[in-house]
């Protein structure tokens, strides 16, 4: 496939007075002027809904501007779809990787532009091409491995190679590090720099300001659809970028007094889980005390989801015991777990955290719709449900004109507030918070952090599961690391702990021995003096 000609000079990609108004009347991008010269790594940052994804989609032909024009290779272009963007040399790696799981890495790389003749694919040439591209770019992959069997990091590298194979000269990376360990992130950055030095233009979308500072040459900040400004990365600090993003001075540092842990609320002993379609868990032992936040780190898919769902009663363990304040949760259903004092913010709020087409008011009462004050003598009082919603909307600053608004109409952060409001207002003894800030804006993120710390200080035990190490280190009083369904590390003091160090345990390079992992754990029932 030949790329269409590029102009000799001028920006690799540019937007001129680009505006995008969606069919529902939302103006996602407003009169944005942006120019990215060839061979630059440009970070585009902004809160959720700031319009950065929409802008990128316009560069990749997934959306068309309502006004203004998109320039690729120095000339105005009409991108009717990704195909025309690819033809012009624009490649995009999405946050949700789009590969064929049952194909090999090489097959995915050449997909659509297969080597071979007369409609036959030459598998050998595909593998060779992939290996050559990998060699040149420093993106290490195994061309013959099937995509469903390789790590998320390799899948991502496959996506990038796929773009390179299509002769991309502009590479758009949409939150590429969200799924990576710190080590994988470093490797990715090294490869991206190498590509840049070879003349590649890279657009790097992220909300992790630390990474933005590390990788980019310049940073463009978007807020509420408009471009706030572009600064040289060397001149920017995380704090200055954050305040540009939100329009006021704001920091993500969490004010956190040292925890004053009391008696263990949650005791997990020899917990095991076997299932055909999920990650198994093997012999987990740990406590979470009232008044402390215990973080669970790990690369996604190492048993965090299973652990959370077992503790919430959504899955049944196949071995071991779980006690909440002396209550054995074996045999209890979900409602029973909730009665025992468990609150759960699920990792995927769209899947089971909310009923999107139901109202905010209905979403806030799912665990308490059958008892006073909402229901008396078998009658559910809509007035009481509404009052309850009004109160929580007020307390948790949920932005909505009315409790009858369907949850689907809310932005990510606001939707998460609905869920957190419900779970915290139940007054849980143990709160399981899974990916609590995923896809929420900085304001909501800060809000969640404050509420988690407040819940801790009010005496709740908090189990914080997150893929974001920065978040875990900022919030956790203690930290556990899961790898392949096993506990491999336990840090009883998180001060001075670095992401890199935790990353070594996440990857399985290092591990704590069993005595360290199970130190000072009492058997439930034998109360300490």
């Amino acid at each position: 496939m030949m790329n269409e000609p590029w102009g000799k000079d001028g920006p690799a990609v540019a937007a001129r007075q680009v505006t995008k108004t969606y069919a529902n009347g939302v103006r996602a991008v407003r009169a944005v002027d942006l120019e990215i010269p060839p061979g630059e790594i440009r970070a585009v940052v902004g809160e959720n809904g700031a319009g950065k994804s929409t802008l990128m989609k316009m560069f990749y032909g997934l959306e068309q501007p309502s006004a203004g024009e998109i320039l690729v290779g120095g000339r105005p272009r009409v991108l009717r779809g990704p195909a025309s963007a690819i033809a012009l040399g624009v490649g995009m790696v999405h946050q949700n990787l789009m590969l064929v799981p049952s194909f090999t890495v090489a097959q995915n790389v050449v997909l659509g532009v297969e080597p071979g003749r007369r409609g036959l694919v030459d598998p050998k040439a595909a593998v060779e091409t992939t290996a050559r591209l990998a060699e040149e770019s420093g993106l290490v992959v195994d061309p013959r491995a099937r995509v469903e069997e390789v790590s998320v990091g390799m899948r991502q590298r496959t996506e990038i190679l796929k773009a390179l194979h299509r002769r991309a000269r502009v590479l758009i990376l949409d939150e590429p590090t969200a799924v990576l360990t710190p080590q994988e992130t470093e490797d990715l950055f090294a490869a991206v720099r190498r590509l840049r030095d070879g003349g590649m233009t890279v657009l790097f979308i992220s909300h992790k300001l630390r990474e933005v500072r590390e990788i980019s040459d310049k940073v463009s900040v978007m807020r509420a659809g408009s471009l706030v400004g572009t600064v040289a990365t060397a001149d920017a600090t995380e704090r200055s970028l954050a305040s540009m993003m939100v329009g006021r001075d704001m920091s993500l540092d969490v004010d956190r007094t040292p925890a004053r842990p009391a008696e263990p609320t949650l005791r997990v002993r020899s917990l095991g889980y076997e299932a055909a379609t999920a990650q198994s868990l093997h012999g987990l032992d740990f406590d979470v005390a009232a008044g402390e936040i215990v973080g669970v780190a790990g690369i996604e898919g190492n048993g965090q989801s299973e652990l959370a769902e077992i503790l919430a009663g959504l899955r049944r363990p196949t071995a071991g015991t779980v006690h909440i304040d002396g209550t054995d949760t074996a045999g209890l259903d979900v409602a029973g777990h909730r009665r025992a004092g468990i609150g759960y913010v699920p990792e995927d709020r769209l899947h089971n955290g909310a009923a999107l087409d139901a109202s905010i008011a209905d979403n806030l009462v799912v665990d308490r719709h059958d008892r006073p004050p909402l229901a008396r003598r078998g009658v559910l009082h809509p007035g009481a449900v509404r009052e309850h919603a009004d109160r929580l909307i007020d307390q948790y600053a949920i932005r909505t004109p009315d409790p009858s608004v369907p949850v689907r109409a809310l932005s990510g952060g606001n939707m998460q507030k609905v869920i957190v409001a419900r779970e915290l207002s139940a007054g849980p003894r143990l709160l399981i918070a899974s990916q609590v800030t995923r896809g929420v804006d900085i304001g909501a993120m800060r809000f969640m952090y404050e509420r988690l710390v407040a819940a801790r200080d009010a005496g709740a035990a908090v189990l914080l599961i997150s893929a974001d190490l920065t978040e875990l280190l900022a919030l956790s009083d203690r930290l556990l690391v899961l790898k392949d369904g096993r506990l491999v590390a336990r840090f009883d003091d998180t001060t001075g702990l670095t992401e890199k160090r935790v990353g070594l345990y996440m990857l399985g390079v290092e591990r704590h021995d069993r005595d360290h992992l199970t130190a000072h754990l009492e058997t439930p029932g034998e109360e300490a003096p």
Partner: protein
Amino acid sequence: MTTTPMTAIETEDRRQYRTTRRRDFAVDLSMALATILAALVIGFLVMLATGNDPIRAYEAMLTGPLDRSFRVGRWLEDATTLTLLGLSVAIPFRARQISLGAESQVYAGALAAATVSIFLPLPPVVAVVVPMAAAAAAGAGMGLVPGTMKARLGANEIVATLMLNAIVVRVYDYLVNGPLKEPGSNAVHSENIRPDSALTPLSDWFGIPLGRANIGLGVMLLTAVALWLLITRTPLGYRIRMTGANPDFAAYGGIRVPRVIEWSFVIGGAVAGLAGAHLVQGVYGRLEPGLAGSLAFEGIVVALLARNNPLVVVVAGLFYSYLRAGGDIMEQQTDVGTEIVVVIQAVIVLLVTAQALPNLLKRRIARRQVGVR
């Protein structure tokens, strides 16, 4: 990054939001009327194309059912059965269970009502209530079978209900042709029910001939209100709604989803059973072969038209029956067959189930407003 663009609704104030809601409601309502109008226009064109006189035909169809009081009675009698059957599927539909079992439930209800009211001598009033209760119980039982199969065993509810329909209809035919057939009669039907068990005809109350319309109409209206209260004002109704909105969310919130699914089937079955009782005790006074006709399946259409809101089901049922009654009259009085009514009904169903149309209109209005600002 989530892919959803920032939504406008969050930034609205309450007054703005209510205005939007009222506007959306107005759009919905006018779209419903426009849909009916469009269907009639298409029917008009079809008749014109087939060389009929559409004006005369429409006159018969649209004014016919109100022409004489007994025709009104026929419309109301038909609407009662149809609406009950619509209600019976609306409840499982609310729990996102595609129950097609109204047919087995209505026949089971008819059998139960007939058996009790033919063979069991009871004092007045009780003689009306007990067969109806028996019918509701039989219908509920017919709902519980596929409900349990779906909820506990993971059987597909569509297959389960359809297969059960096949079985129950054969059993019904056998009983009406055999053990329950009136001895010594040439025609195939059961004995008449005892007079005490009959639902009082509306003619007795209003003093004008209203055909076979009976106080079953009142039962139907009460049932609709009761179901609406169930859905909006009880914990079980909430559980049904949440199970329908997102079963994973319901389970996460501590709702026992399988039990809710069973209940939705049982309640729907009981209502369909009542429709059977209405046919036996109010309309025919005995068991006849195929007494529910195609009503069980048209009930599904009615429920869909009403978006499973029990109160709207009443409106939709009355409207749909009106078209049915009008079609019959049109066929009698003109050369146009009832097929044209089927065309009109089909167009309405297609347009209503295509929910994209009103949404498109709402979005267009929203965009225009943004442009003005």
